């Protein structure tokens, strides 16, 4: 009961405080520079100089403090020792290059980057193409899209159950081993299987992201003008030709967007590896390695920050590409 009361008051206070700022600040500005009376014109001009900053001020403050400042702070920390007391130059980066675990994480991340966005986009495109042509397409879309609503941790539990292992001779309760043993093989502990366990983890993210790719690509497919398709069909194009030579080239831009979006998710994703293997058995990835160095045991902020900056470096090209695209759209 106490908890409930506390929760309600904190929620009300938090939300109310925010409303009060916008209401109060605008009210005060109107009081200080009333848009009527002797100096109405001058007041309005002055108020118009201030008011945008009242509107945008909190947002700018938050962005600067919670996203811009940490980037610079991390750069600084990555050049310092474990407690951020002394400068050590590039020692942390040199350490990264020599650390076997980092190399493993980096290689695994490349594997993830190569496979997950590609697989999710291709499967999404396939799902979009198929579900657009059937009567129960909307239901099918909802069900394929559903994993988007499930947390990575929840998805981890769901898939760990699929990969569950029982010793030979016992009834398998994990679906994958049940199928595998029914085919006449001995049961496997999938998540500790060297190298291949990476793929079993990737499947989870592909499962989650395919719905996202499907929804966006399906909208793009529907945006293709009917006339082009009809003309192609009249000219005798087969369904395959229509798909690969007419539809896909027309939605290239959207495919690229879906691909990059999932790429970003892959770089930042941490929960799946964290809950399913915690980077053991050769499944480490950068985000989880960073967490290890920053929060487990004796924290080493220098090394942790250096790893975080490697992730940042991998994202930067996409960031530049994004800004360019946005600029082009606006002009």
């Amino acid at each position, binding site marked *: 009961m106490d908890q409930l009361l506390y929760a309600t008051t*904190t929620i009300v206070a*938090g939300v109310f405080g925010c409303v009060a700022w916008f209401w109060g600040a605008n009210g005060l500005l109107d009081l200080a520079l009333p848009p009527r009376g002797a100096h109405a014109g001058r007041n309005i001009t002055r108020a118009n100089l201030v008011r945008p900053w009242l509107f*945008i001020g909190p947002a700018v403050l938050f*962005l600067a403090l919670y996203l811009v400042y940490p980037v610079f702070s991390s750069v600084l920390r990555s050049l310092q020792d474990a407690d951020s007391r002394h400068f050590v130059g590039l020692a942390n980066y040199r350490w990264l290059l020599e650390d076997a675990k980092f190399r493993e994480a980096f290689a695994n991340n490349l594997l993830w980057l190569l496979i997950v966005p590609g697989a999710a986009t291709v499967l999404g495109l396939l799902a979009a193409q198929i579900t657009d042509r059937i009567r129960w397409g909307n239901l099918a879309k909802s069900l394929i899209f559903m994993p988007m609503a499930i947390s990575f941790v929840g998805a981890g539990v769901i898939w760990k159950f699929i990969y569950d292992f029982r010793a030979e001779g016992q009834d398998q309760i994990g679906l994958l081993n049940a199928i595998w043993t029914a085919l006449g093989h001995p049961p496997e502990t999938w998540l500790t299987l060297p190298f291949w366990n990476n793929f079993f983890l990737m499947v989870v993210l592909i499962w989650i992201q395919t719905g996202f790719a499907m929804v966006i690509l399906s909208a793009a497919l529907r945006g293709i003008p009917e006339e082009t398709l009809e003309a192609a069909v009249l000219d005798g194009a087969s369904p395959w030709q229509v798909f690969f030579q007419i539809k896909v080239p027309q939605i290239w831009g959207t495919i690229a967007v879906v691909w990059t*979006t999932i790429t970003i998710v892959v770089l930042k994703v941490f929960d799946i590896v964290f809950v399913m293997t915690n980077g053991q058995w050769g499944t480490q990835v950068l985000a989880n390695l960073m967490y290890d160095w920053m929060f487990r045991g004796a924290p080493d902020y220098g090394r942790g920050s250096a790893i975080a900056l490697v992730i940042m470096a991998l994202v930067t090209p996409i960031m530049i590409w994004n800004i360019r695209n946005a600029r082009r759209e606006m002009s």
Partner: protein
Amino acid sequence: MSQMAGQKAHLTWAVNLAAALLVVLWTIPTFGLLVSSFRDRDQIVTSGWWRAALSSEASDFVRAGGAGEQIREGDLYVIAGHVLAPGQSLSAWGVSARAPAAFAPGEVAELKDGATLSVAADGAYRLSAPAAFTEARGMRIFVTTVTPPRMTLENYARVIGAEGLGQAFLNTFTVTIPATVIPILIAAFAAYALAWMQFPGRALIIAAVVGLLVVPLQLALIPLLKFHNEIGLGKGYMGIWLAHTGFGLPLAIYLLRNYMVGLPREIIESARVDGATEFQIFRRIILPLSFPALASFAIFQFLWVWNDLLVATVFLGNRRDQLVMTGVLRELLGSRGGDWEILAASAFVSIAVPLGVFFAMQKYLVRGLLAGSVKGG
């Protein structure tokens, strides 16, 4: 022409089949865990969830009573008792590990020295011999039992009470609601300013917002944690709201600005001419008109905050009474990794709310995705 029609029917059939296959592949993982969450604890570990609707068969042995329990009936020494647990029924039994199902219920087995053993279908056994039993430990009776399928809500009752999921549920709400409402408010004002107000530095801020869409969250953890500690916020709800607000803002501003720019200019300008202040225009015109965009972002932010593990682990602390549901779930995975009845029920308590929101508001979610699909975050 007829050939084309024929080909089409053939294709429709294949397409339907392919769609069905995809849907099954995509729902089965969740469905399996859902079924398991309602199953009896013992049944989960003995048979796969796909056999949940069937009776489960298990082999085990039970010890008959020892010499102390024998009674004399005429010239026979008899030990009697029961081998079944309530709810089970017997399908076969045996007297040696090599042939644990050698006898049908009701049959009589001849043992050495003239002793006999019979086990009835209801599980009552009767061991009799002409000479007195001397062993203190009773003989082993191997039984193959059949337990009818049992669906139960016990697992849920258990995780919500004993495993602390009820508390975590409340914690998650306390984190999620302000962390959804506050960024929407802040972003809506900012988006309006970026879309419809003239001021120096506007283009720069827009570019910054787009760039910040992709900044990895990991980078922000340590600097912000230190910052929170320095200003005395420490680990707590206030801190996590601020963090989620900061991390959610780029997407919120981006989505809302794109939407607001598309609103008709005439409405806003005629309101200005009529003497409405910017605040009034925002509150009375822009906010109501932007409802679809606000709704779609609200769903995003809600799902993202509810499902988040990283931000909560770092900014909220790991005390039992502070954990959010993803945190509890992660702990359970670590400590109760094999107790699937607990894991399954916990997972479903934690995904019930987002799934409900997802199915109820899917229309807005999709709309938001499509509006935001031209960026990369």
